[in-house]
């Protein structure tokens, strides 16, 4: 009985992973197909769709925007999140729970729900549709993400260490520069990579806020898939593969620092 149960669970997991392989594999194979129509594999292969999609979808410009957005969001999220996480980890104050809730909500509430009012506001101030608008909007969930990833790293750093540094004559600034920051490097790296890869893959907010010149790769991909039929599906899949390569390269880096189970839920320990 117990054995049967485990076999069933295993089969399900294997099936699920196969389904992922199928999903990713289809896109990959299709991007190299000259034509592919209801056969296990295409009859002829080509790499031409990559050049085609690079040209047709203006991927040079899209990629530039993507990287600018991802880098800016990461830098801003770390810059703003670092002191916030430090203070949350170190000090108890009356508004702490309210603040934690404020930081928690943008992660909990789906982006479509607050994205529409946010887009409304940003368009009203004429930031909507620009690269700045996309960065500003993405920062709303990414800043809390950075804070919650950094928080345990700061909690790990023993207060005694800080006291020891102070006792030995380090000023507040020196303490930060010589003790806290070096010790926080792994945390910053983890948070930075996670924010980077999440921003690149973040769809809803970018979609609502981007205009003609400020689309990131996922949004461009969305429009291409949405308008399937306008261009050969193989070229759409070629773009998808470029996107996939970008995300996977970063994911490999991310997984060097975090366990897969840590990637999904950073919040349960907080409530």
């Amino acid at each position, binding site marked *: 009985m117990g054995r049967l149960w485990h076999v069933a669970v295993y089969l399900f997991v294997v099936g699920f992973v196969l389904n992922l392989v*199928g999903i990713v594999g289809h896109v990959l194979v299709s991007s190299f197909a000259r034509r592919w129509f*209801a056969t296990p594999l295409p009859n002829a292969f080509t790499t031409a769709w990559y050049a085609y999609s690079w040209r047709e979808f203006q991927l040079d410009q899209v990629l530039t925007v993507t990287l600018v957005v991802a880098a800016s969001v990461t830098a801003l999220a770390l810059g703003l999140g670092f002191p*916030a996480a430090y203070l949350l980890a170190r000090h108890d104050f009356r508004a702490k729970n309210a603040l934690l809730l404020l*930081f928690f909500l943008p992660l909990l509430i789906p982006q479509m*729900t607050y994205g529409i009012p946010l887009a409304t506001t940003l368009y009203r101030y004429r930031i909507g549709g620009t690269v700045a608008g996309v960065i500003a909007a993405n920062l709303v969930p990414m800043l809390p993400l950075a804070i919650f990833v950094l928080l345990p790293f700061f909690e790990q750093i023993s207060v005694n260490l800080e006291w020891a540094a102070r006792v030995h004559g380090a000023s507040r600034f020196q303490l930060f520069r010589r003790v806290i920051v070096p010790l926080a490097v792994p945390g910053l790296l983890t948070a930075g990579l996670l924010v980077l890869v999440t921003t690149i893959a973040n769809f809803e907010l970018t979609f609502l806020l981007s205009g003609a010149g400020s689309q990131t790769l996922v949004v461009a991909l969305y429009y291409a*898939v949405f308008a399937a039929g306008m261009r050969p599906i193989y070229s759409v899949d070629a773009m998808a593969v470029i996107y996939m390569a970008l995300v996977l390269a970063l994911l490999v880096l991310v997984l060097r620092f975090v366990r*897969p*189970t840590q990637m999904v839920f950073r919040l*349960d320990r907080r409530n």
Partner: protein
Amino acid sequence: MLPAAIYLLVMFVYPFAYGVILSLQAKGGGISVANYLAFLLDPWQVRTVWVTASIAVPNTVLTVLLALVVAYSMRRGVWMERTITTALVLPIALGTVLVAEGINGFYGPKGWLNQGLLALGITDAPRLTHNYTGVMIALLVQHFPFCFLMLLGYISGIDPGLEAAARVLGAGPWAIFRRVMWPLIAPGVAIAFALVFVMNFGVFPSAVLVGQPAGATRTIAIAAYQQAFEHSDMAMASAIAVVMGGCQLLGLGLILVIRRRMAATGVATVGAGKR
């Protein structure tokens, strides 16, 4: 600290409040609930609530149940665990759009799956993409790994000694689950339920790309989006977003109430001789 808090106040709380106020503004000025009435009285619009719920509720139950079963069975580690968990991170990292495109190909009428079925002689397999089923598949592919990894992290954090203690005291597999593990996992399952439900209720790209956005899978997020960007009616769009948020809150509240009930009626506590 301050800059981060101020940023979120300005970019998160303010737009939200602004959206609520905007939704309450009548066309000519003044406060009215006209936008909400318009939404609720238009069958085409109000139907989206039902459509979204009929996707979100069954999908959430299925996702959490499957994830719970698999995570619980894998709590003491299994063969190739690292590979499996890494593979499961893929759809989370790749995001909805790519997964949607892949599903359209793989599960499509010309995809590998259907080819396989045809080879097995199954010629009348139901259509799996661009309909309700497609959205269900897309959401499951997206949220099962999320939910599984979260619950696995949660369950493997429980002291294995508790299980050993229960066994020595005479508890079989079912008693261990029911009396020891479940009460300890239940809070995690409630959180998983809440998160998956909320995500499911806001479904947008999957509903458009793998679904039937003009019909069977016209979810409330699509309605809000169309109102804002196709009809440029920000007030009405905000009203719909508020309704969407309200439904999500309602779902969250319900989950919390059920969780309380369960804790209070002794599902989570083993009273001596309570049975």
